[in-house]
């Protein structure tokens, strides 16, 4: 199958993609027999142009089967969705409920010439979108008990007299909710004036972990890529 790229035409286009709360993708289209849905990691960009697309899809032989194909040269997946699937889903495409970035392009297949004509908008950014997920996190100053004598915790009356004292340390404890298909580095943090950006990995989710954060400095700041809405909640402990 040949891939040919064309600029939007009056009888062939796809524009204004939007995702609803149920992760359904809606858009305006005209004259499309297929929809090319590219999905890629939240922490990266995918540059698709009329010039590079045919080469990118050169290895995708079974594109029209509708399976999701991983294209190594793009480090992205592409799925060619037929119009009947789109229509049967109420003129929408169901997306996975996970953070991801997408680009969607409308296309018209011509069986006579075995050519897939892909319609390109003037600005590719208009057909890029992301599925956002919310992630909650907690952060608190790490403390150690100092009310012990020679390391032995006192109990009973002695314990009452020498009630353990919670002393803050140069560390913070952090908890971030678990998330499916989380990509390492989608959430990062900074410490005070330190210019370095530290990554949060999937292994750090759903558990408490420790970060060095000297006393007297602001607690670490967490930020996330645009497909994750990071919400700070009060520590529950």
């Amino acid at each position, binding site marked *: 199958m040949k891939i040919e790229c064309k600029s939007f035409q009056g009888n062939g286009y796809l524009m204004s993609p939007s995702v609803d709360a149920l992760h359904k993708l809606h858009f305006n289209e005209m004259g499309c027999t297929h929809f090319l849905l590219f999905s890629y990691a939240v922490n990266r960009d995918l540059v698709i142009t009329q010039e590079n697309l045919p080469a990118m899809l050169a290895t995708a032989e079974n594109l029209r089967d509708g399976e999701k194909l991983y294209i190594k040269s793009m480090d992205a997946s592409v799925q060619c969705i037929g119009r009947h699937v789109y229509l049967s889903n109420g003129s929408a495409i169901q997306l996975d409920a996970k953070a991801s970035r997408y680009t969607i392009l409308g296309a018209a297949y011509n069986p006579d010439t075995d050519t897939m004509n892909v319609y390109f908008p003037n600005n590719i950014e208009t057909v890029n979108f992301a599925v956002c997920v919310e992630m909650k996190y907690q952060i608190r100053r790490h403390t150690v008990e100092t009310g012990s004598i020679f390391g032995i915790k006192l109990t009973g009356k002695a314990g009452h007299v020498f009630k353990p004292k919670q002393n803050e340390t140069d560390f913070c404890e952090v908890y971030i909710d678990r998330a499916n298909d989380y990509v390492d580095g989608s959430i990062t943090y900074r410490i005070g004036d330190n210019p370095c950006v530290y990554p949060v990995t999937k292994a*750090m989710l759903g558990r408490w972990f420790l970060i*060095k954060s000297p006393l007297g400095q602001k607690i670490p700041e967490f930020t996330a890529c645009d497909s994750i809405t990071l919400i700070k909640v009060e520590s529950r402990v």
Partner: protein
Amino acid sequence: MEIINSVESLREALTEKLDKSFRGEITAVKPNKPMLIVYTGKKAYEGKVFVEKAMRRIWKNKTDAICQIMLEGGELGESDGSVSDCNCVDEEKLYQLVENMQTKGDCFNDLSSKIVVYVHNAADFSDISEFKAAYANIINMKEMLGGSGCTGMSMIMLDESFKKVALSKEIRSYIRDQVESSERVSRKTMLLSNRTKRGELLSGARAWENYDLLGNLLIMLNCSTSDFTTTPDKFFTNIRPTVLTASYSVINRPNRDICDVIINRVLRWLETRISSGEKGSWDEICKKLEISGNTFPFLKNYYDTKAKTTLVPIDKLEYLPRMNVNNTEPLLSMPYNQFLNETMGAFEVFFKENYEGKFSRDIAAMGDFRRAISDYIKERIPAELAISSLSEELIENLMRGLSATSYPETAAAGTYIEGLLYNTFWEEAKEIFREELVARKKGASGHLGTIEAMISAFIDSYNPPSDESVILYYTQYIDQRLNDSMGNAILERINSVEKTSENILTAVYESVSNLFFNEAIFSMPLEKELQHRMGSSAVDVTNVVKTLTDPLIGNRRLATTFDPDPGAKFVMINKTNELIPHMKSYFGAGNDAVFLDTGDSNSMAIVALYECNSTTLL
């Protein structure tokens, strides 16, 4: 120092350097009277540079005060440069030029009268009538410039090559008529032909020899009586009009030939030395680069002082996350494998983002490193060693030998990561090191190519000296010096600079100049150099004198059926020349030889004058 950018300029610079070292400074010698030299055509004017060079040998910068112009088709012109630059000179401008001379009291002894010299070259005229017009022009000029206060002389360069011989014959015939004529155009006329008495045609480099002779004649014509032992005017002040010719014999110190032999030998030595440099062993290359085992101090030092400073300091890794909420011990102190586990994959992501490929992504840092390692290699691996030893195989082995150091994962994380960072740098720098080794070999080969091109250029313009003794003596001499220390000195100079042809030629120039300064043979005046070169016993001083005087008759610049009346001789020689007493004795008492001190030990010459009559000029 002059720019040496070609083999020709090297040859000129060295010859000039040698010439100059034998040119003494004669002070207070200046032309006697203001002199106007008029060249009556382009060909004649082309000889101006040789005339000037001869005059400058004696009069130095006072020569500049002499006015020289060109007359072509009745138009006068003045030029400081080439013939084509000639500007028209009108009558007013001419007066101004002549008057200018008369304001230069420090340049002339006697400002009361002037000398006008016309220089004609037969090659400038298409027929005899053109010549006659130019020849007669001197009358107008003399009148314009003061009549009786102005003496004149016509110098005619005859072109007796086959092409122009007909016109030259007509000129000779016309001049012969003038000798007998009662209405003479010029009282004094000098005929100088490019065909000598013995029939030799002066061509090639010798084609301009008559202009050199002309310059010497002008010195005699216009020298101050106080400068010389006798008054040369006597040759030119006869009441009766005179037609003269001259003969010229010269022995030069063979400076140009010496320089040719030296340059030839030095370039060939360099070519041989570089192309067949001794093959360096693996150990020698490693030693020169200071590589021992897999340690390369240059690289480690560069990493520590330059590359590392651009990286995120390792202590910032303490801010990575810790899995164990009770672990507040320094992360970098724990074993590396525990550190990896403790940081839950964050270190790997952080490493990828901040360290991996950091160096190769930094174009400026890469450029700095490339320059540094390139300089280091050039400094350590001489060109000849690079050509002979830096084979692909050796470079590959060198790379393999310099494998990165590995640390056990049980080592402290700080130590392990320091090693990891260095290894990362090394992996990225290694490729540049390899490229620069290859470039060194290629560059050095290019260096060989540059020398080969120079030799080729030199050979194209090289005429082996006619005197074989010069070739034999200086070849042996310079080969010995090259194999002693001079050769290595040149190589060192070359290796310390970029291998452009200009730098290589400059290195040769400096080394040979150094030789000129330090070695006795290059400070010997021509007579001593000759004796030294030939072996003192082989050179009989009488023979040298005869070598100079015997060719005079044959060298006479006019072939005639009847020999002209023999005239006087001028010996142009440095007054310190040890041959002077022998020459005086050879000439005998009462001879007409006048010894003119040139202060120049590069040459000695005799100019002999002959008076021609109508029979001689047949």
